[in-house]
């Protein structure tokens, strides 16, 4: 039973490597809490709450559709080292996050651990109810695009602060102070945005994808229709024509969409309906936004422009 040439060397090299790995001492705890977020907005909020006490990274790029990331192995390296994972939940990341979490080999951030924070547990979801794929790419737990309502931003910040305090109790006082500062700023900004949006109350919008429900609820605007006939199904010229017919008397003010959707049919709808076509950032880092508040400010400023 003599092995073929080379077999023994390959097997010996592998097993030697594994045994040495097991003998390597785990790295000592570092001072900063390592936070990894799926959505950059959670990362931005965590940065506000954590300050210098946290190291933050986000997996989704701000101009990327968060439903459809490639489950790149490079994310495993960051997940492996993380102390806290922030995710949107409601199956927004179901298409790419689960195999990464398994490969991360990090029990601290598995579901049910203190290091796993599903931010959807911190807000009141909209559009819940029985889900069936015949209705398109719907999410059973509710509409997952909740972070663009700044009131939810406050709730998320509170949840992140509590979780950071649980992971890093020695600095809980600092997290509380920073949270208080964030909430105070947020409340001031929310009051300012509400005031500026008041003249637009009940104005009607058409959206590309049904990802605006929370922001529209905050802004007091009404969603009159969606270019996607069903969530996740690309719009067709015939559906756009039908939508135009249905909304003819509705005085649509804006057509809203993210940058990662095609613009052609949205532009056509806007031209024919007399609406303004707005391609807006919905995640921190897009359109030169630097903070969570910058994104909301961008959206509000664009809406109130004449």
């Amino acid at each position, binding site marked *: *039973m*003599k*092995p*073929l040439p*080379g*077999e*023994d060397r*390959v*097997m*010996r090299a*592998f*097993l*030697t*490597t*594994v*045994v040495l*790995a*097991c003998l*390597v001492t*785990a790295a000592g705890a570092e001072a900063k809490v390592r936070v990894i977020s799926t959505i950059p907005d959670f990362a931005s909020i965590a940065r506000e709450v954590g300050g210098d006490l946290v190291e933050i990274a986000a997996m989704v*790029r701000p*101009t*990327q*559709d968060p439903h459809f990331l*490639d*489950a*790149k*192995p*490079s994310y*495993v*390296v960051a997940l492996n080292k993380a102390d806290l994972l922030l995710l949107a*939940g409601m199956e927004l990341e*179901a*298409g*790419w996050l689960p*195999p990464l979490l*398994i*490969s991360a080999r990090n*029990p*601290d951030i*598995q579901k*049910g*651990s*203190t290091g796993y924070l*599903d931010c*959807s*547990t*911190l807000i009141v979801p909209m559009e819940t109810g029985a889900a069936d*794929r015949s209705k*398109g790419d719907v999410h*059973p*737990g509710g509409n997952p695009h909740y972070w663009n309502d700044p009131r939810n931003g406050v709730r998320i910040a509170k949840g992140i602060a*509590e979780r950071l305090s649980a992971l890093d109790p020695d600095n809980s006082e600092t997290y509380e102070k920073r949270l208080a500062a964030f909430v105070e700023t947020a409340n001031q900004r929310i009051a300012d945005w509400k005031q500026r949006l008041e003249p637009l109350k009940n104005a009607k919008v058409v959206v590309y994808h049904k990802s605006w429900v929370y922001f529209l609820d905050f802004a007091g605007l009404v969603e009159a229709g969606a270019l996607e006939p069903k969530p996740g199904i*690309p719009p067709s010229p015939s559906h756009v024509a039908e939508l135009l017919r249905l909304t003819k008397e509705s005085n649509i003010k804006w057509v809203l969409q993210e*940058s*990662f*959707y*095609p613009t052609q049919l949205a532009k056509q709808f806007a031209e024919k309906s007399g609406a303004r076509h707005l391609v807006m950032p919905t995640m921190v880092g*897009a*359109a030169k936004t630097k903070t969570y508040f910058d994104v909301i400010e961008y959206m509000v400023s664009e809406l109130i422009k004449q």
Partner: protein
Amino acid sequence: MRIAAIRFLGTLAHGRFRALLLAVLVGGAATLCAGEGAKAQESDSGIFGKEILGNEMNPSISLILDFTAAYFSQQDRVKLGGHNPSATGMELTGAELAASANVDPYFRFDMAFCFGHMHLEEFYMTTLALPGNLLARAGLFLSKAGRINNTHPHSWVMGLGTLPNMYLFGAEGLGGPGVELSWLIPLPWFSEITAAIQNGEGGSFRTKSFSKYEPGPDDFIHPIRLVNFFDLDDDWALQVGANAVLAPSTMGPEVGNRSSAYGIDIFLKYRPIGWGSTGNFFVSAALEGWFREMEVPQDVWRDAGGYADLTVGISKRWMVALRGELWKRIEGDEPDENNRRAELGLDSQRVSAALLFLPSHFSKMRLQYTLESVESFNLNHIVLMQLEVSAGSHGAHSY
């Protein structure tokens, strides 16, 4: 001292101690993680609000259907087997029930049952909490050998398995009951090494029947894979893999015949995700090549081959793909009706082109043309029309 230690470890890895050492490592690490090594903690979910739960404690279950209408211009051709269409006509090339769930903080299970062939394709547990960046699987699973072997057909871009994979690992793919250990190497980039010890058969490899013989470590199948992944920038990604499969030969394992295969795979993807990019457009190129040495009665066969893919995502719903395949006999018996060359490696070339339409993320239609040239057979034209659908909650696929 260090050199002596490495020599000692190398000696331990030789011969009959190989399997024992692997088993001790996995068993010991699993014991550790079930005790003090585990850091999984319960969350205070009452403080943070209530998750919207469905049947949270049930496994995620999905059903996958692959339906194929195929045309082969030649009745007399190399037999494909596995999940490939077998003849001109219509058939279910895949009917899979998949289930997965976390068992507890330490393990998860995954299962795939194939209704079409009425056999369990995979059923294994994976650890969630091993220390030292380790991860183990145990059960029945497809081996990590190259990019394709451990994937399921509904995740393929093309509608046919590659001929090189069939010659190397068999039409169903290389796999079997066993144990696998992988280590995430602590480097700034993703680097993972995986090795398994498995019982079973596939293509060039077969463990002998243990009803008559007491097995030693060399009697099992040992797939080994090292993969490195690099984010070149936000839009470009590169993955490079090195593979080895060491096992008894499918021909004469009882008399100590051996097979070994060594392979390299490269995957490069461009997917722009900047402002204004939908992320639907992408271009990916994959290249996988193998060298195989297989002892057969009174001879040694040496062969080499592989495939190259080019896939373009045109829009959210449309993709096109091209594939070229090559297998070359280098040394060994000429094909004849008394040996298994037709099954295990004839000089072969194939080119394929496919057009895919994805009505949604959960359904796929494919029109494929393949031109196949295999020695001893006439040129074969293959046309496939396929529909794949997935219902339920199916786990995400790896990159």
